[in-house]
Structures are given as structure tokens and as C-alpha cells.
């Protein structure tokens, strides 16, 4: 019986447990509850992966009402990739984050913090499994609001201006998305994604649909921190508590990219002829700029967390570059990189969490000599950095491989893309090696000798991520199959 309810469990269980966690008397109870629920959601995600890879798409009618009239929850391999990324990142961040959360957040505020965390988890899972455009907006509202609350709990005062900037940009993005959905609803009379796609074909007037596509794409681009609209992201991740940075860096921007791809391929794709040309030219140029400028700025960043933020702008550029190639190879490369990048960036922020916890700060000067005082954490950081660069034996290499291979099919334009990909990888080498040089070649600052290795609770999950990285570098069959199915679904709708 319960198996039929799997698509909805990742949303309803965290929603049920959030109010309870908010009322928990002490912080460790709230933390245990949050971790258990997050682990349960991850287990459901894995179960869904098995079902979807066997059975294809699952459709679930909330409230028992048939599709276009009631709200439909739809789980296919693209949403399963997102679910795995979200619940994996959340479970990892929670289990490893206990020490850093206790250090950064006063204990009387922690039940509220974990309640907001569970709401964010529920909202992101809701977005991943949603089959209804307005439903995505509702969960986007909850996820951004909970995100602002999580980031605002940052350790120092600078968290508040960072949150405010994120709040303003996020709200603008969400309202653009709402205007776009409103326009689409006005022209077709339905909100269900599959129904929208079917009815968009025979809409007499084209201009409102173009408008709707523009608003949806721009709104989601703001939420996804695509290149020119990314200004809020590095500060938000740097000033947030470390555990939040692990969670949000792995899934907040990717959820927006996920929704953007679903809309642009599955709804507007087939609607009018030259949509994909418009989509690819705009997004590809933004992606290229994002990759090059994001990585370039990351090189000159002194605060390592902000550096990782700017590097995320570049990596989002990779994902969009793959998607904007509008080819099976390209889109699946984009989806693979969504999966791999979440793993890599989550791990890097986890390592940063440990370093900040022990060394007191995240700037390059604080990390001096960390290689000797915290060998295991820095070792994990270097390995994950190599994966970010795309060295073989790591997951990053696989996504680079598929991306370059997809670019090769585009002929001369492909050569430009490959050049951009390789230049930004070399820039990644530079900014990762800056950290390595500071950590291994410079002696620690005076009076910093008392640091010892990060707590075991942080090291074990950290090295679990590193090993997962190497495993998916050697045997990428799971993410690759899911990504190719997802690409098939997206493209065959776009025809």
C-alpha cells in the first residue's frame, strides 16, 4: 500500500515533522528528528529511483482528482535525479553539521532552525516531484522563505545584509515566474504541465506565450544565479552557517535550473518553432560568460567560501551550456553535471565547514598551514578540488567528458565551447591550487598551533562524499542512465 504513496512522502513527511521540530524542547532532539526525516526522504528517493528506472514515469493525483482539474505529482528520471541530490545533500549536511551548527547558532534558536531546514527540504522535494506549474510556485515560495531564514541564522552580522539581498532578488525572481505562469494560465486555462504543453499548440495569439516564456526563464534565471543575475549567491553562501551552505549550494540553484529546463523544454519547447533557437542562443551566451567570468572572479577572491560561490556560478554555466546545446548528448551532460556538481560542491563546503569550525575563519590567511594541522580535512578538500577541475578518476571528469563530447557534434561552434570549457577548467586549477599552496606551503599563523583535526562526525561524511566522488568517477552508470532518460523525456517533448 505504502509503495503507491512514495511520490508524495518526500513532501508530506518533512511538512508533518517541521512543526513538531519547531516545538522541540532541546536542540539535540530537534537535530535527531531532522536527520531521521532527511534520511527517510533519501531512502524514499532511492526507492523511487528503482521504481522509475524500472517503470518509467509515475503519475500521482493529489486529493484523488483527475489530472488537469486536481494537482498532479509526476516523478520521472529527471525529478529522481533532483530528489537524490536534494535529500542526499540535506542528509549529509545534517549528519555532519551537528558540531558546526552548535558552534554557530545559539541553542534556543536551533529548534526553529531545524524546522526551517525541514520546510526547505520539503519544498525542494515538492518542486522536484511537482507536475503543476502553480504548485511549483508555492513550493518555490516556501523554499526561498525557509532559505532566507536559514541564511539569516549565519554566525556574524554580515549574514543579514546578504540575506536581504538574496530576499529582494529571490522575490523578484519568484514574482517573474508567477507572472509567466499567470500568462500561460490565461492563454490556456490550465496549470498542469503536461496539459499546458498539449494546449499551447493551438493558442491563436503567440505574443502572450512569448511573454510568458520570457518571464518564466528570466525569473528562474535569477533564482538559479545564472551569470548576470548571480550577485546575491556568493555572499549568501559565504555568510550562511556552514551546514546551510552545504545544503543550499548543492540544491537551491539546481532546483531553479531544473524547473527552467522542465518549462523551456517540456512546455514552451513544442509551442512555437524558433523557441529552442532563442533559448539556446540566450542561455549559451550567458553560460559561456558565466563560466569564464565566474571562474575568473573566483581566482581573485580571498574568502574561500565566496570563492566557492563564484565557482558555483561557473559550474551552473556548465549545466546550462549542456542544456543549451538542445541535443541528447548535451542535455544529458547537463543533467549529469547537476548530479556531480551537487556532490562536489556539497563536499567542498563540508570541508570548509570543518576548517571554519577549527580555524575560526574561511579566508586564505586563516587556512595557512591547515595542511599540517588538519591533514584529513585538507586531503578531502584537495581531492574534491581535483574533481572540480575534472581530473580523471573523479566524477567531475565524467561530466567534462560528456560535455566535451556533446560539444564536438556542433562543429565549429563546438570548438569555441570546448575552448571555453577547458579555459574555465584551467582557471579552476588556479583557484583550487591557491588554496593548496596556502594550506601546505605556508606555516600556520602565530598562536594557531592549538588546532587539531575536525571531529569524527564531520570527517566520516566528508570522506564518504570523496569516496562517492571516486566511485561515480569510475562507474558512472547510475547517473548516466538517469540523465539520458531525462534528456530523452525533455527532448521528445520539445519536438
Amino acid at each position, binding site marked *: *500500500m505504502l509503495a503507491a*504513496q512514495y511520490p*508524495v512522502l518526500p513532501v*508530506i513527511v518533512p*511538512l*508533518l515533522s*517541521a*512543526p*513538531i521540530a*519547531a*516545538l522541540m524542547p532541546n536542540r539535540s532532539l530537534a537535530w535527531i528528528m531532522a536527520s531521521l526525516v532527511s534520511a527517510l526522504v533519501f531512502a524514499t528517493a532511492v526507492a523511487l529511483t528503482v521504481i522509475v528506472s524500472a517503470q518509467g514515469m509515475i503519475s*500521482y*493525483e*493529489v*486529493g*484523488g*482528482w483527475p489530472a*488537469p*482539474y*486536481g*494537482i498532479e505529482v509526476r516523478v520521472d528520471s529527471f525529478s529522481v535525479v533532483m530528489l537524490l541530490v536534494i535529500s542526499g545533500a540535506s542528509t549529509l549536511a545534517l549528519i555532519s553539521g551537528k558540531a558546526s551548527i552548535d558552534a554557530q547558532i545559539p541553542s*534556543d*534558536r536551533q529548534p*526553529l*532552525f531545524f*524546522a*526551517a531546514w525541514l*520546510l526547505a527540504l*520539503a*519544498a525542494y522535494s*515538492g518542486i522536484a516531484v511537482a507536475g*503543476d506549474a*502553480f*504548485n511549483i510556485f*508555492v*513550493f518555490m*515560495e*516556501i523554499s526561498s*522563505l*525557509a532559505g*532566507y*531564514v536559514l541564511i*539569516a*541564522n549565519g554566525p556574524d552580522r554580515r549574514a543579514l545584509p546578504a540575506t536581504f539581498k538574496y530576499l529582494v532578488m529571490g522575490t523578484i525572481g519568484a514574482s517573474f515566474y508567477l*507572472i509567466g505562469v499567470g500568462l500561460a494560465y*490565461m*492563454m*490556456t*486555462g*490550465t*496549470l498542469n504541465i503536461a496539459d499546458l504543453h498539449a*494546449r499551447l499548440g493551438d*493558442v491563436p*495569439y*503567440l*505574443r*502572450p506565450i*512569448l*511573454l510568458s516564456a*520570457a518571464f518564466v526563464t528570466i525569473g528562474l534565471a535569477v533564482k538559479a544565479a545564472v551569470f548576470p543575475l548571480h550577485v546575491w549567491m556568493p555572499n549568501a553562501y559565504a555568510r550562511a552557517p556552514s551546514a546551510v551552505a552545504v545544503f543550499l549550494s548543492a540544491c537551491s540553484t539546481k532546483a531553479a535550473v531544473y524547473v527552467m529546463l522542465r518549462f523551456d523544454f517540456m512546455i514552451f519547447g513544442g509551442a512555437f518553432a524558433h523557441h529552442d533557437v532563442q533559448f539556446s542562443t540566450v542561455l549559451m551566451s550567458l553560460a559561456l560568460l558565466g563560466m569564464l567570468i565566474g571562474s575568473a572572479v573566483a581566482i581573485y577572491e580571498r574568502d574561500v567560501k565566496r570563492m566557492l560561490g563564484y565557482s558555483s556560478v561557473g559550474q551552473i554555466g556548465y549545466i546550462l551550456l549542456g542544456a543549451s546545446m538542445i541535443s541528447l548528448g548535451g542535455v544529458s551532460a547537463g543533467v549529469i553535471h547537476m548530479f556531480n556538481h551537487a556532490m562536489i560542491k556539497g563536499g567542498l563546503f563540508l570541508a570548509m565547514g570543518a576548517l571554519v569550525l577549527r580555524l575560526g575563519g574561511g579566508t586564505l590567511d586563516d587556512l595557512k598551514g591547515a595542511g599540517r594541522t588538519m591533514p584529513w580535512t585538507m586531503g578531502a578538500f584537495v581531492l574534491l578540488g581535483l574533481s572540480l577541475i575534472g581530473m580523471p578518476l573523479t566524477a567531475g571528469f565524467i561530466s567534462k567528458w560528456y560535455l566535451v563530447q556533446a560539444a564536438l557534434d556542433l562543429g565549429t561552434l563546438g570548438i569555441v565551447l570546448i575552448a571555453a570549457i577547458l579555459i574555465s577548467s584551467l582557471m579552476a586549477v588556479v583557484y583550487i591550487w591557491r588554496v593548496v599552496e596556502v594550506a601546505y606551503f605556508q606555516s600556520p599563523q602565530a598562536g594557531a598551533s592549538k588546532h587539531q583535526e575536525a571531529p569524527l562526525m564531520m570527517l566520516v561524511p566528508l570522506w564518504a562524499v570523496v569516496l562517492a566522488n571516486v566511485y561515480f568517477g569510475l562507474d558512472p552508470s547510475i547517473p548516466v542512465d538517469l540523465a539520458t532518460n531525462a534528456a530523452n523525456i525533455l527532448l521528445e517533448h520539445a519536438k
Partner: protein
Amino acid sequence: MIIVFSLFLLTMMVVVALAVVETRNLFAAAMLTGIFSFLMAANFFVLDAADVALTEAAVGAGVATVFFLGAIALSSEHEHSASRKFGLALLAVASTAVVILLGTMEFPILGDGSAPVHQHVAPWYLEKTPELIHVPNVVTAVLASFRGYDTLGEVFVVLTAAIGVLSLLGFPRNNSEENAVNDGLSHQKILHIVGKLLIPLIILFGLYVQFHGDFGPGGGFQAGTIIAAALILYALLSGGDRARRQMPPRLLFGMACLGAFIYAGVGGTTLLLGGNLLDYSVLSHDPVHGQHLGIMLIEFGVGLAVASVMLTIYHAFAGHEHR
């Protein structure tokens, strides 16, 4: 004839919006936003959207203005001279406006029957509601049952707002009995008496709106706001500390969580009883009864959650002042 009203209201709204942007005094800006919401409510009413009009009036004009004033009380009255160069922002807003205007050329005419919106989903709702849910007010049927999943999300948005305010401002601490700061307006006899007279009526009206939701415009959100407005009026009259002793903020937040939990719990129980999430027909032997029960329960949950969240936020602002 209606066109004249809506034209008048829309022009007034544009005027008020410009005034809000222009004014430097934050107090005036808060008042103007209140007026703007009220005009919006009137406009909705002209468009025959009674439910939305009631919500907009209660939330926009009523409680939101109180929160703005609470926030202003904590910060400065006058907007300090933020750098007023907004050339780029103006350009962006202007270009978006032009794009939308260009788009409106091909929108279906307001209210014309053949518009796609009235062709596809709406007729099904109108036809199926009496048969499946047997509730006169179709809006509540759609809100609570057909698209109950969205409303579940909305309730949790409200709860997240409360969690956000509390995690930033923290729970207000009550001063003990003797040094309770008597900041209420109790020394103003007239206000006190009129207030004492009106508060029960307002609460009664709130409850009416809550349980009348199935038949006429109403429902959880509006009722919660109205009840919250009444209790805020009471807090204003009798002073923050006495109000907080009668309704301790921790209990309020507990009620907010309870409200949200009721809504999600109803969803959960339908799951356990074998139906899909939020499928109320499994709640009792006869599906239509089940729908009634389900809608009533979740409306109660929504009302409880919204009322206690509004109060929690008010007390968080008001209580914060005395620290």
C-alpha cells in the same frame, strides 16, 4: 457603469503608488500602502472576486499596516537618504512595463466568455462541485479540495514566516507583574470602552467568516486575520505585557504549529486510510460527507494557524521594543 468605478479605483491606485514611492516619511508610506491595499480590495470586489477582496481587505489593509507600523516603531521614522540614483532600476522597470504592454495587445478581453480560462477547467469545477463536494461556494471547494495541495503549501508559507520572524527577533520576554510597562491606551477612557465593546463583535464576525466559508465568501485565511486583528486591538488597548500574559507568545507559536500540523495531519490521515494525499472522501463512509469534514477541518487548521502567526509576529515586534 462598472467601468467608471474600476477606472476610478485604478487611477487612484496609480496615484497612491506614486505617492508611496515619492514620500520620504516612512509612517506616511505605511499608511499609503494600507490605502493601496484597500483600493485593491475594492477593485477585486468590482471584478466579482468576493473571497479575494475580503482577504485583501483583512490582510493588506488591516494586519499588514500594523506590522509595518510595528517595524517602523523599531527603526527610524524617516528613510535615511539612500543614494537616490536609480537610473538603471528605472530603465529595467520601464522596459519590463513596455514588454508587458506590448503583450497585452493580444490578451483576451476582460471577462469575455470565450476566453480560454473559462473554457477548460472552470466549467468542470462549476459542474462537478455540487455533485462531488456539495458546497455552494465553488471558490472554497477549489481552494480546499480540488487544489488543497496548494493551500497546504500556503499554510506552511505562513508558518515559515512566523519561524523566520521568531528566529530573528526571538520570543518576546514578559516583564513580571509589578514593573509591567503600562504602555496601553487604558488611560484613554473612550477608546477603552469602544474597544471593549467592539472586540467581541469582531471575533464573532471572524468566527462567522470561518465557518461560513462553505456558503459565502470566507474561509480560514480571512477569518484568521480578522480574529488576529481583534486580538491585536485588545493588545493595543490593554498594553503589550498584559496581553502577553493572557496569551503567552510560546503558546501562540505552539498554536500556529498546531494549525499547520492539523492541515498536514488531515493529509496524512487520508494517506493512512488508503486514499491519495488530501483525498477527503476516505475520511467518512460517504464521500461527500468526507469532503465536508475534510474542508471544515482544514479550514479550522488554516484559521488557527493564520491567527496565531499574525499574533506571534505582532508580539515579536511589539515585545521587542521594551527590551
